[in-house]
């Protein structure tokens, strides 16, 4: 029974809508980067978010993850409004985002980058860090972190500073860092950009495996339409701040509005075309 108690009354949580974004508006100096965007992410799905450069995809991620405040509109996650939560509370609720420009911590080792994201670490409290036994959880997390590194073939870089990783490797680290945080919903901002084709395939395959095995839902911004259409259950298309379409991949390719605004342009695949 998926009900949560709020204000004393039971509220039904719609399992098919893990994330509900309604009429989000975000203006920068009067220009609407996000303009009444509405979007649903079904529990257990891989949902793609595509659209030309500057469509407002990253801005929408920033709002959902608590890094920016919307001017209006609502964001509900597991039936609760999260529009006013600060980023760390959003992440603790299981909604974890990655950044378009990977934000790995360069002066921490690759392994420490992952350990940082681990949950329930008694050693993070000052007093408990002083007490003996705080290292036990660290060893558990270490095992999990090494598994995740192996998943993206970074296990032999575990002890290197993250600052020496290549751009593509940082993307991969950013991806597994999100998984390390035991998320329910992961927002990936262009996880494939700058990653070589072989690793791309690997990453996509991992995405499907993780989704199937761990009950993790993904919302993925991506310009590589070929790849993303193959793995996703749903596709949402953004253009000029609005979500102009949401539906299964096949229907996306046929939708006149999408073709008009996005797919129609010659360079749709790289997404650099100006919207219609």
């Amino acid at each position, binding site marked *: 029974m998926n009900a949560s108690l709020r204000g004393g009354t039971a509220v039904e949580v719609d399992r098919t809508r893990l994330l509900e974004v309604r009429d989000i508006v975000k203006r920068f100096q009067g220009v609407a980067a996000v303009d009444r965007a509405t979007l649903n992410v079904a529990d257990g799905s891989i949902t793609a978010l595509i659209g030309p450069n500057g469509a407002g995809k990253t801005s929408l991620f920033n709002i959902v*993850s608590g890094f920016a405040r919307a001017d209006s509109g609502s964001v509900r996650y597991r039936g609760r409004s999260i529009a006013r939560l600060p980023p760390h509370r959003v992440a603790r609720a299981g909604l974890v985002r990655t950044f378009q420009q990977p934000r790995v911590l360069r002066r*921490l080792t690759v392994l420490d980058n992952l350990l940082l994201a681990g949950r329930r670490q008694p050693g993070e409290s000052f007093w408990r860090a002083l007490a003996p036994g*705080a290292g036990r959880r660290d060893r558990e997390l270490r095992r999990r972190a090494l598994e995740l590194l192996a998943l993206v073939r970074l296990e032999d870089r575990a002890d290197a500073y993250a*600052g020496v990783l290549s751009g593509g490797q940082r993307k991969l680290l950013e991806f597994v860092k999100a998984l390390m*945080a035991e998320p329910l919903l992961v927002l990936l901002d262009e996880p494939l950009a700058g990653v070589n084709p072989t690793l791309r395939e690997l990453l996509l395959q991992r995405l499907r495996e993780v989704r199937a095995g761990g009950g993790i839902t993904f919302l993925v911004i991506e310009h590589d339409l070929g790849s993303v259409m193959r793995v996703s259950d749903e596709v949402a298309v953004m253009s000029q701040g609005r979500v102009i379409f949401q539906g299964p991949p096949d229907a996306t390719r046929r939708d006149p509005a999408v073709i008009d605004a996005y797919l129609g342009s010659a360079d749709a695949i790289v997404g650099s075309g100006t919207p219609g």
Partner: protein
Amino acid sequence: MLDPGFWTFVGLTAGIYAIFALGLQVQYGLAGLLNFGHVASMAIAAYTMAILVVRFGLSEWLAAAFGIGAAVAAGLLVGLTSLRLRADYFAIVTICFSEIVRYVLLNRQDLTGGPEGTIGLLGRGQAAAYNTDWEGLVGRVREMVSSGTGVEVSRDVLMLFLIWLVAAALLLVVRRVSVMPWGRVLRAIREDEEAASSVGKDVFARKLQALALGAAIAGGAGVLYALQFSFFTPDDFEPLVTFFAWVVLILGGAARVSGVPLGALMFGLLFAGTRFFDFWPLSLLDSADRAYLRLIIIGLLLIGLMYYRPQGLLGRRQEMLLE
């Protein structure tokens, strides 16, 4: 230079600065907070203790604890109001705060004794002391040592021993927590606050905690300073003292906790050693000018260090170069 009194003085200076700078190490070295008003914690703890003992008749132990508590409270006040500012604005707030503290100490003569310092705490003509019990205890310990082992230890040597004992204990504590997940969170915040908050770390609370811990440690240094020197004035808490803590940190290597005692020893040597620059040609300068010389020498040494070892004596160079 072979005079044991000289070396005791070097050791005492170094010990107090080791503790004082350790507080800054927690704030800057771990959490990346630019605190340019660190001396305020020391001043607040020392003065709170002295005032509570002399004016309110509190026991010295309790007063010392309240002194450290007051330093923490002041740190929290500054943090709660200003930690959300950008790093450089925060730095400006801290230096302003420490100057405000010093000016209050100078001007609220009725409460603090004013420019004359703690000796004037009871007003003119009545010398006030806040460490009678402490000196009594130190005297008894000296007697015990001499009757037990037959060795005569001077008061200052005993203080030296005690101060370094405290310094070592605090260093071990800070070192321990800095290698635990607690320290990892702070290092992450220091490098990229948004990245840390994206994996669920409460950046503001963590920074506040580091600020409070650093203030508590500096407050401890203030109490020890007060006990060692028996009397102090607002001039003992000039911004220069904060600057000296930064010197200690930079000498040792800001990223390493273990660099702090080494930096403090070097600083103590420079600080005390330049008093003895009385040989030719420096003997041509009068003693006031020679006091300035020590600042010049410290400055030159820092420039040299930045050139040859920008990471400090014990820092890791590799870490500095990561892009």
